[in-house]
């Protein structure tokens, strides 16, 4: 299982408005910013797994995601934060040289779909940040992508 990668210098997307001379700035709740991320191949479930760690631990629930059978998304039971992504890489049947790109594409599509499935816009900042984290750390996250 790969080590957690700390996300210390995560630059959170900030919305800045200068409205009629009044300065307004918005950014993500500190509880929605992941502390660390890791990617590993889980032998038990035979799935490639990407996990996010936050300051608050909580139980997870799976998101019903009808469009994509290779991906399972798990969010926080109370908070709705994205906690885990499971990818059935064995069923993807992508050539090993392209598997990293194929998984990244599927995961990004799944997060985009999650944004559409969850009407609560307050969660979208967390999903967008998770997508950004995966893209910018893909080399380290996908090290164990090809099962031994």
């Amino acid at each position, binding site marked *: 299982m790969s080590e957690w990668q700390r996300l210390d*210098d995560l*630059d*959170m997307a*900030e919305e800045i408005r200068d*409205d*009629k*001379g*009044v*300065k*307004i*700035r*918005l*950014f*993500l*709740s*500190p*509880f*929605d*910013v992941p502390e660390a991320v890791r990617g590993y191949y889980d032998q038990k479930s035979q799935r490639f797994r990407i996990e996010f760690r936050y*300051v*608050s*631990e*909580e139980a997870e629930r799976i998101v019903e995601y009808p469009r994509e059978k290779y991906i399972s998304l798990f969010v*926080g*039971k*109370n*908070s709705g934060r994205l906690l885990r992504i499971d990818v059935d890489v064995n069923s993807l049947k992508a050539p090993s040289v392209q598997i990293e790109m194929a998984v990244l594409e599927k995961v990004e599509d799944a997060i985009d779909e999650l944004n559409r499935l969850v009407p609560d816009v*307050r969660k979208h*900042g967390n999903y967008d940040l998770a997508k950004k984290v995966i893209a910018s750390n893909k080399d380290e996250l996908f090290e164990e992508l090809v099962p031994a």
Partner: protein
Amino acid sequence: MRRLRVFLSGICLCLQWVLGLLLLPASALLKARPESAAKWGQDVKCVLEAYQDNAWLILFLLAVFAPVFGFLARKVKPVWPSPSMRALLYQAYKFAFKKEPQGEEPHLHRVTLFEKKRKKLVIRERSCHLTQASHTTFRVSDDPEKCEGVAGWTYVRNQILFIDELPELGENASSEDFNKYAEKTYVSPEWLRRKLPLPKARSYLGIPVEVRGNLWGVLVLDSAGVQTIRYGPSLGERQAYNFIGIAVGKLLERIVS
């Protein structure tokens, strides 16, 4: 109600200690010989024999009820004011406000912790002692349009919100100033006029606070000055506010049930 809770908590705590301390002599009496106690009278001997016949049950009850009363004492004891939370808010106050408090009216900069109770945000703790008695509440609703104030907006949007350079609402403030202030702070101009001579705040920072994964309330920093809340483009300052929000949430996990 608060006095009653303090009283009950004290009673439970005393009972915990009494029962705990009784365990020692009660255990020692197990080995006492009733014949030796007969020299103090037959009644003492009979009581000792009766005790020794039921000693294991009595010791068991003492061992069970002492921690039960300790648990009840902690449950009944009022959570607020919490010295640890007040100390933490004061540290947030010292970090967030650029100007030193010396020589200024302390209530011009405040850090306030609001808890969501039913459909309102109520004040739970405040860094400044002068405005502790405030009963100001802000309405919250699933509909962002129906939320009141920076506190209500921060809670409903679950985002950190920073507002600076609001117009000054003094005696000479125009109705345009009132409208602009009201619009930017998510209240109505009528609400503002009802609060006169307050509010004096011209800059706000709202931070959502979660307890065990649930949104619990918000922390609001406000200042009567403009550009007095430390907020710059550096990641470090934003991370400091993240840290403050997380520290408050983690402390709340220990002090609220």
